[in-house]
């Protein structure tokens, strides 16, 4: 099942319904998974002034509409979620499985889709022997909710729960990811889409659409992830063993996180036998990260999901740069409109056939059904069109016209000839 390629699921409950019936029943008291109180939805939103193109320039548009440090008031909508993190096996392709840290046992994690201004309350629970957080990338959260371990919060340890509470703003395509040991944890699967919907969306006004797709682009070095996850599991289990032993905790201090109160403490620890991580490898694996699988929503071609369109239809595609490499998504046979960047509506749509999606960025495009057929949509940095160094594969999918046959395009025959 892949929530990412489904049509709009405008519900705050689907995660709970689809994934959490068991746990929800067990946690009987929290059965109100979505506390729909009287809906005091704001009459306008951050796109209110921008409900049609061209968008007027507003120098203060980056100011949050709601003061981020407010708390929910009576009558405001609060969506409650439970997100758990587990170590699972994730299949990228047949015969290619990796261990993954997964939000609610899914890679990528479940899609959040809420109205701008609604409150989000997430009970984030950790079932792994490692530390995690959720960083709400692009959301104007209060600082304590930003999910930076030892920066804005303590990382969430084994069997600990942290509650995030913030208002969903600004409108647009955003995402979330773990911010603890990010190079490892994001490769290991800790990322997902966070979509904040606007009532006055100029994209929808200009390009009426029913179907939309969210594509999280990322890459993985399966060897790095395997070796590092093993090292982290070992360290995590040793730490869990030490829980409750202040003496042991003190002996191991510093080894754990590499954080010291001062430079002097660090130097003293080195004198006492602490070997800094840069002078050893915890996993016996020292080399730069070399991604070998490139994924759309956690799958590599040919296991990626297709995009579907009909002649005359508009579809919206939300591209998320969830990994650590830029990707240059190219659509065959079409130009398309770049309409939003990092959630924000562009001053004017820009026409492309290839669009860069940079790490940490989100890029929304609108594809118009103008040329019936079955078209490749892929990263044009061709190194990403490989699986384990072999082409074809990787970050590639197809734009499939549902009415291709009627238009006289018999793709099955062509595929048969070509292969």
């Amino acid at each position, binding site marked *: 099942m892949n929530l990412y390629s489904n049509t709009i699921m405008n519900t705050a409950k689907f995660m709970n319904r689809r994934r959490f019936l068991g746990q929800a029943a067990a946690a009987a008291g929290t059965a109100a998974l979505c506390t729909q109180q009287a809906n005091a939805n704001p009459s306008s939103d951050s796109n209110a002034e921008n409900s049609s193109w061209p968008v007027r320039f507003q120098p203060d548009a980056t100011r949050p509409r709601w003061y981020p440090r407010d708390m929910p008031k009576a009558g405001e909508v609060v969506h409650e979620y439970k997100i758990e993190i587990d170590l699972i096996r994730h299949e990228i392709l047949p015969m290619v499985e990796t261990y993954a840290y997964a939000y609610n046992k899914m890679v990528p994690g479940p899609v959040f889709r809420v109205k701008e201004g609604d409150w989000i309350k997430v009970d984030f629970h950790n079932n792994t022997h490692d530390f995690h957080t959720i960083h709400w990338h692009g959301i104007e959260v209060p600082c304590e909710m930003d999910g930076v371990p030892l920066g804005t919060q303590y990382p969430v340890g084994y069997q600990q729960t942290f509650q995030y509470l913030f208002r969903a703003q600004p409108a647009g395509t955003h995402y979330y990811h773990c911010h603890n040991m990010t190079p490892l944890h994001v490769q290991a699967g800790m990322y997902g889409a966070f979509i904040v919907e606007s009532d006055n969306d100029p994209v929808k006004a200009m390009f009426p659409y029913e179907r939309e797709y969210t594509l999280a682009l990322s890459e993985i070095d399966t*060897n790095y992830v395997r*070796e590092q996850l093993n090292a982290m599991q070992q360290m995590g289990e*040793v730490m869990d063993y030490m829980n409750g032993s202040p003496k042991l905790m003190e*002996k*191991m201090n510093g080894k754990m996180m590499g954080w010291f109160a001062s430079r002097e403490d660090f130097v003293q620890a080195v004198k006492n*036998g*602490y070997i800094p991580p840069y002078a*050893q490898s915890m996993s016996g694996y020292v080399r730069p990260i070399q991604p070998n699988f490139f994924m759309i929503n956690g799958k590599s071609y040919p296991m990626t999901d297709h995009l579907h369109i009909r002649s005359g239809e508009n579809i919206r595609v939300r591209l998320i740069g969830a990994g650590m490499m830029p990707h240059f998504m190219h659509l065959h046979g079409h130009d398309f409109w770049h309409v939003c960047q990092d959630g924000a509506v562009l001053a004017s749509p820009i026409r492309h056939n290839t669009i860069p999606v940079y790490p940490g960025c989100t890029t929304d495009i609108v594809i118009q059904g103008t040329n019936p057929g079955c078209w490749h949509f892929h990263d044009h940095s061709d190194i990403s069109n490989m699986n384990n160094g072999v082409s074809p594969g990787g970050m590639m999918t197809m734009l499939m016209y549902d009415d291709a046959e009627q238009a006289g395009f018999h793709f099955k025959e062509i595929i048969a000839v070509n292969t």
Partner: protein
Amino acid sequence: MKNYQLPVLCMLSILATAAITPNARAQHTPIPAQPGIAPQIELDGVGIGTIELRTPRNTLTDGTKLSTGRINFSDSALLLGVSERLYRQGGIGSFVLGATTTDSSLNGTGTGLLLHQLYLNYSIPSLEATLGRTDTATRLIDFPTLRGDDLVEFTAPLDPFSSGGDIQEHRYSNQAAVTFNSKLRYFVNLHAQHLLNSVDAGSDQTGLNSYGISFRYMSPPALDDITRIPEWGVGYERQEIPASHGGANNVLYAGMVYNINPDPVDRVDLRLQDVYSTGNNLATFTSITDTYRAAANSIALSLRWLHSPFGTPGFQVALTGGYRSYQSVPRSDTFALALTGIKNLGQGFDLVAQYTFQYRAAAYAAPFGGSTDNSFQLGFLYNFTNTFNHHLGARRSLLNLQHQYIPD
């Protein structure tokens, strides 16, 4: 022997066709493989060099006087391993080739290299099959002495076909073995071995001469420091000694590792192993080999403190003791002690020291040339491992042990 003609053929074929022909291969393979995924290649090694002082100066039965001081580099080894994931049938296939320096390499011009590992291994989640030469199938507990063969007569079931010239012969054998496992934690090993035969050197004595079964438990290696009992096992071995040499020998052995103080910083553990053999009816020793054949009981025990500041090994101090007695040979018992210290100087490189003492009662002392031995060694030890084309995870990694096995 095509491989001997290889250079010439190779040159000719290149000149003639400007292409590498099958003749340029090292050896014909029955099913030639297309170029595929490069195998994972592992290069491992251990180098150990010590200056050793021995007293008193003992004399062997043949009159050889042992030296009192020497440079000892025995038990150094280099290993090359190659493995590949088998996409057709599943599982992993591997091949290992390695050699170790022996005690005999210390004598004279010193050419003693033993091919101690040369085997093929096929592994799938439920079992491993091994064919070739490798560690004897009866090896159970490793003791914290400097070299693996220190105190070997107390720590291992012995090879009754060894002349005694090379104690490494007790540690390696030719074997065909299958090891079944449950959850990669419980292992049953069935094997047939050729224990290396140096007694009948010159004759065609290469047949299977030993059979056995063993059971062992091993906890996840990553959690060795904090598990109370990381390892235990029992085994039975039947050594087929010809009737002319006293008849078959049955060996029972059992051992365990016990963490007295499970602790990632200051681990203190105890290792214990007993090897009991029914032996044959020998009542006197006429050679060292007889001491390997006669009914005996060996017990070995060690106490070890491993200090790992912040979880990284720093130094280790260990006391290992062994006692061996013979049921049918009077005044033949022996015991030994080894006090071993290792200080880590940096990853894989250690400063090492060891004092050993052995006492032998009269009947046992005769073939070994003396009733007491003192030896003191000081030196360096370096062990390393490096993996190229790394794409196979460790079979018994924590993740595989806890979340089902993923072959890659």
